């Protein structure tokens, strides 16, 4: 009983900082409609800055009450300034770009901040100071409870109150709420949106920074804080309802407590619990606990141009490339061959995601789930049934396709950001299963010894195998696009109502499209597993899902060729960067930013623009 109370209070304390992060995220999203992946990075920066300010320099020398709390507040303010700078220098330029492009830009910021933090603070965990006045524990009902936790428990509701006052009692807050509903009208009434956006980023970032700095006495600062917290914050914002502060508060409490008690009750599946709750909430209340259906004032999606047929020169270039890919490899070394085989798999992986995102008009933040499902499907067969590669390669697309059918059934029922978040949630569930179900999946150690059959062991043969299977997959996906099914898919994307009117079952079309994409990703995953000889939970992790997103967006969603170029460019760039530089994230992030700013149509878009100019 006693431990239950302590655990409940623990949950409340975590809920407070989760709420601060989620509040910032939801406020920024409400006004700018940007899903800020970098919000977790701002949280991490807040923690690092807080650490520096409280342990070095004048405030640290001052020490005591003002030293610590001054440091925490300054860290929050500095993070707010950094957020404003990010908005001012980067995001302001891409407000008109498609939603996912903005996401890509904020993800690039994540990469850049990772390496900058590594450069400044190093890879080791940093321990922060204790909070003055709040050291030690207090007795409550005969139980000793850390004072700092009690303090944190109060921070959440107090901040909720302060934010409520800000939003309802100040002109700035009223403008923010108005802009959340109809930005264009706010501008027509003479309000300078740019200033509003910059200040909302400053506000949201300061909240994240405050949350990060307040963690100092509780846990060590490290480079993994950003991803860990952003996923939780997404979950909370989605459960609570996008743009709803009260919802975020409720959801933070729910998730905080879920973690606290999950550890006691279901230690094996704590990671899954939060996501299961999110999936359940979204299915029951598609706009979150307190969220409302976004008003019809949002600009409708820009109608995409019809899928272009490949121009003649492109077909010829493709044929030449294919010949080279067949003829050259015997002259290449093993390293080059395995890099190329990986690229081929990434091309299929990206092409499969493209089916969902381009023609399907849905977003998937969790496409790695299907890649991993294929990989684990093959590996489990090999481990438990000693199945040969041929069987594994046939089985993997089915395994992934079935996972896609199950997850997709939920995802295709929601729209926009909510659907994207649900895909992320399912991917996390898949990841947690692989990570925590040690008896079957080997947990963190993965499954080793997933080797190709004897005849395909040579790098050259394996390359031809990868080329053939991935090539076949890509060609099939492409043919599908121009087949009646592909037209139905595009029709439901461009005008669901009209598509329904001519007898297309839009839900079903999306569902089938989702499953087909999953199956193709599963094929890529299985090949990847045989190429590496092993599978690990990271195959299903968020970074791999993000890889897929980046590849598709980098190439351009609106063409069939785009994802292929994007996959080659991205995986090639990453491979090379990892080899030549420790700071590959920084370089990659800056490269992505440059692309987003200068080629908003992706690589294929840039190619096509040249084509148009010539015509």
């Amino acid at each position, binding site marked *: 009983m006693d431990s239950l109370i302590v655990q409940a209070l623990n949950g409340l304390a975590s809920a407070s900082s989760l709420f601060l992060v989620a509040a910032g995220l939801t406020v920024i999203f409400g006004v700018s409609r940007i899903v800020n992946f970098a919000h977790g990075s701002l949280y991490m920066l807040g923690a690092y800055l807080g650490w520096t300010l409280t342990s070095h320099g004048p405030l640290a020398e001052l020490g005591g009450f003002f030293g610590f709390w001054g440091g925490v507040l300054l860290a929050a303010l500095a993070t707010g300034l950094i957020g404003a700078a990010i908005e001012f220098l980067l995001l302001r330029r891409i407000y008109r770009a498609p939603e996912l492009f903005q996401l890509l830009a904020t993800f690039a910021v994540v990469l850049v901040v990772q390496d900058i933090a590594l450069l400044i603070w190093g890879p080791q965990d940093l321990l922060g100071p204790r909070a003055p006045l709040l050291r030690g524990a207090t007795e409550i009902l005969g139980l000793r409870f850390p004072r700092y936790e009690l303090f944190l428990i109060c921070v959440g509701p107090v901040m909720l109150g302060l934010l409520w006052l800000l939003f309802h009692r100040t*002109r700035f807050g*009223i*403008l923010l*709420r*108005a802009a959340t*509903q*109809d930005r*264009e*009208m*706010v*501008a*027509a*009434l*003479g*309000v*300078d*949106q740019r200033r509003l956006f910059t200040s909302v980023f400053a506000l949201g970032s300061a909240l994240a920074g405050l949350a990060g700095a307040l963690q100092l006495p509780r846990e060590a600062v490290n480079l993994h804080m950003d991803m860990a917290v952003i996923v939780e914050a997404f979950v909370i914002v989605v459960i609570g309802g996008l743009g709803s502060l009260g919802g975020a508060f409720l959801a933070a409490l729910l998730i905080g407590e879920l973690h606290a008690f999950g550890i006691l009750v279901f230690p094996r599946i704590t990671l899954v619990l939060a996501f299961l709750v999110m999936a359940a909430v979204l299915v029951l209340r598609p706009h979150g606990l307190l969220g409302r259906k976004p*008003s019809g*004032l949002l600009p409708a999606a820009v109608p995409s141009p019809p899928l272009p047929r490949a121009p003649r020169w492109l077909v010829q270039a493709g044929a030449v490339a294919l010949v080279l890919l067949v003829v050259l490899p015997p002259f290449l070394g093993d390293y080059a061959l395995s890099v190329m085989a990986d690229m081929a798999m990434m091309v299929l992986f990206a092409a499969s995601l493209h089916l969902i995102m381009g023609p399907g008009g849905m977003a998937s933040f969790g496409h790695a789930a299907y890649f991993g499902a294929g990989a684990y499907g093959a590996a489990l067969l090999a481990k438990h049934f000693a199945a040969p590669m041929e069987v594994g390669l046939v089985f993997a697309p089915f395994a992934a396709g079935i996972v896609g059918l199950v997850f997709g059934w939920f995802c295709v029922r929601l729209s926009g950001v909510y659907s994207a978040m649900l895909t992320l949630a399912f991917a996390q569930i898949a990841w947690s299963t692989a990570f925590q179900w040690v008896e079957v999946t080997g947990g963190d150690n993965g499954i080793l010894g997933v080797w190709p059959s004897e005849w395909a062991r040579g790098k050259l043969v394996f390359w031809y195998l990868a080329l053939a299977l991935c090539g076949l997959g890509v060609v099939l996906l492409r043919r599908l696009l121009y087949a009646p099914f592909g037209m139905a898919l595009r029709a439901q994307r461009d005008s669901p109502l009209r598509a329904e009117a001519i007898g297309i079952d839009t839900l079903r079309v999306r569902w089938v499209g989702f499953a087909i994409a999953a199956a193709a990703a599963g094929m890529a995953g299985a090949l990847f597993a045989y190429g590496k000889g092993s599978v690990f939970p990271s195959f299903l992790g968020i970074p791999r899902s993000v890889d897929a997103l980046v590849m598709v967006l980098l190439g351009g969603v609106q063409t069939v060729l785009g994802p292929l170029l994007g996959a080659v460019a991205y995986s090639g760039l990453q491979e090379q960067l990892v080899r030549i530089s420790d700071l590959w994230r920084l370089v990659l992030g800056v490269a992505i930013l440059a692309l987003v700013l200068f080629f908003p149509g992706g690589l294929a878009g840039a190619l096509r623009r040249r084509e148009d100019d010539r015509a």
Partner: protein
Amino acid sequence: MLRVDGLHAHYGRAHILHGVSLDVAQGEVVCLLGRNGAGKSTTMKAIMGVVPPSAGQVLLDGKDLAGRASFEIARAGIGYVPEDRRIFAELTVEENLEVGRRAAPAGSQGWNPERAYTLFPVLAEMRRRPGGRMSGGEQQMLTIARTLMGNPRLLLLDEPSEGLAPVVVERMAEAILALKREGLSILLSEQNLAFANAVADRACLIETGQLRHTASMAALMADDEVRARYLSV
């Protein structure tokens, strides 16, 4: 006061306005008349910068505003009341007015909520009500009041009588006449000829994105042929 010259506008690739030119004198009420889809709303949006004009000039007191951001155009003194009203549904009446509020130019009598409530007394009774829970007529009054809070010198009113009950339409006409008496210049768009006749001095007839005919309101009412050509459906 306002002079629009050769205004062109596009929605994506669709060319909608083909060189609209018109002017509004100080204290004058000019009415844009035309059938559904003629381009009345687009003209207003292009003046306001909500749809950026692709060519042409929008001169307010001689200063060209074409191509500016809409917040700058609002600050220059043009107030815009869109036809779909675009009330902030989750904000209360008071808060909606607050969004529109801007300091009045020195020396002029500025608008404040109390003054707006004397123009539209209904609003005073529902200061705390969210905009989403008001009737169409009440929302129309609120959207006009909200724009007035920015102390515009020229008001763009897009179909203020659309979808309103006859009594409310009458009240609306009275309010517009009251604003006119105070010297506000107004460019209005209408399909309701009787309403236009009650408030406007002059009419501009628009068809397929081009201005076809300009006449005083009285002359237009006397000219059956022109009305039949541009307005009858």
